[in-house]
């Protein structure tokens, strides 16, 4: 992918911790939630509409990657081109080499789920997803990477494993993969999938970067909250991934209950240690 060879270790930029992100040592790149960025009427300098902190990071030369949560590419409806256009505009405003969203749907029949819902892993569902991804790609100025989600359920009559499903998606759309190792761990805990099999089945050469996040066990369910510390087991999945491929980037996602700057820095350091172990 043009411009992306080594992103390094990054963190999700959130307005609540903007100064923390700016001050943290060793932040090589950041990700912004595209839906939280409002660019105005687009006349004049698009960057002037970006949050001051994001502009500052860009001035420092830190790559900023837009991450979307609302395209609903796995939905039965055609992807909303207004949302795609917005994602593309954000990408251009920050000069991003790529954008991303999830392999999921978030609305159906006019209702918003409020969650990233897993797509049925059937050939029919894959056809719908492929059409939407291709349509989005045609309307985006940069490549699109797609992320595996954490699921609390599996739809019945699945024909493909998650890895096979994503592999075929990549083959048919030439999209990139954003692998969330915390979601792999969550799925292993909640629905018994095998992260190693997933890593065996996906085309790792199409790996754009990796997400790492924290979560918490509630009763029988592991919740991928992004509001708790990263578990050693999640870093274990990252370790497994890094043993197979050198990821272009690894990013820590934290969306709530933000801990101290020191704690965030130590989580980034732990991630970097796993990545560097395999680089050495």
């Amino acid at each position: 992918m043009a411009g992306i060879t080594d992103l390094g270790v990054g963190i999700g930029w959130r307005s609540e911790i903007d100064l923390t992100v700016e001050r943290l040592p060793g932040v090589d790149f950041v990700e912004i939630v595209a839906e939280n960025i409002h660019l105005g009427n687009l006349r004049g300098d698009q960057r002037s509409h970006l949050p001051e902190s994001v502009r500052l990071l860009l001035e420092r030369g830190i790559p900023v990657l837009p991450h979307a949560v609302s395209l609903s590419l796995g939905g039965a409806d055609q992807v909303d081109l207004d949302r795609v256009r917005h994602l593309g505009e954000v990408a251009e405003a920050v000069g991003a080499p790529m954008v991303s969203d999830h392999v999921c749907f978030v609305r159906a029949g006019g209702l918003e789920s409020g969650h990233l819902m897993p797509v049925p892993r059937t050939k029919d569902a894959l056809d719908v997803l492929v059409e939407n991804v291709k349509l989005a790609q045609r309307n985006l100025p940069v490549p699109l990477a797609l992320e595996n989600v954490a699921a609390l359920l599996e739809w019945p009559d699945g024909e493909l494993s998650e890895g096979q499903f994503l592999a075929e998606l990549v083959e048919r759309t030439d999209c990139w993969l954003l692998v969330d190792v915390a979601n792999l761990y969550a799925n292993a805990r909640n629905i018994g999938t095998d992260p190693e099999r997933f890593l065996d089945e996906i085309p790792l050469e199409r790996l754009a970067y990796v997400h790492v996040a924290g979560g918490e066990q509630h009763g029988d369910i592991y919740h991928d909250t992004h509001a708790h510390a990263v578990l050693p087991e999640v870093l274990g999945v990252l370790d497994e991934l890094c043993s197979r491929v050198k990821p272009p980037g690894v990013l820590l996602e934290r969306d709530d209950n933000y801990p101290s700057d020191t704690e965030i820095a130590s989580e980034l350091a732990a991630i970097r240690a796993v990545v560097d172990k395999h680089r050495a």
Partner: protein
Amino acid sequence: MVTPMTAQGTQLSPVEVGYLSAGPGRAAETALARLLDAGLVRVSRDGRVSAVHQHGHRGNTPVEARMHKSVQTPVSFNKVVKTAAYSTEMQALHRQLLNDNLMRKARPRAQAWWVFLGAGVLLTVLGFLLPGFFIGAVAFLLIGFWARGSSPVTREGKAVLKNVTASDRVLAVALYGFAGNVASQKVGDLFELSQSVVKMIPLKRKKKSAGSSCGSGCGSSSCGSSSSSCSSSSGSSCSSGSSCGGGGGGS
């Protein structure tokens, strides 16, 4: 942090110093400064305050603990201060300062106090021409001084304040507010707060005739808004109309 002490040897928290210095608004600012200093809250560029999640750390005083609880989801800088200034915990702090004889129920300043005082002075001058005016002069001067109101801070409270210096950044907020200056440096800068954030707290209005105590003269989010504690006893400088705002600082 050097903690100020009363004549009886009671230690005062920085929040109490803030209250004595300029009322509940300043005390609220000081509580926020304490939380920032302890790394228990963070402030974003757009001035939203949010709790830093650390198990078991909630702040040293009830006001700080209440403030920490109020920012579990981000709240704007000025609203954090205003909410704390109005809180029951702040009213309890005020009662404590009254009980400790560091504050007293302030006598509100009458709007026309200066008229009585002026008339007293005029009658005094006339008294040199016609001694009978001296009687009226004394009466008007007495009424004038009475109508001028009284400081809510007692002599002991003022004595404590006199010995407090901005020996650290929290006490700098207690004495001068985030918008104030200490040693030619902006107090907000000590916390790496941008001026746009600091200015979210409304500046106090300096008003010569500070009506009912600080109700009209201390129009910041702090003093002027905190009716219960303010009307009876805002900051020491409040009733003198010179510098009252918790929000204003800069004394």
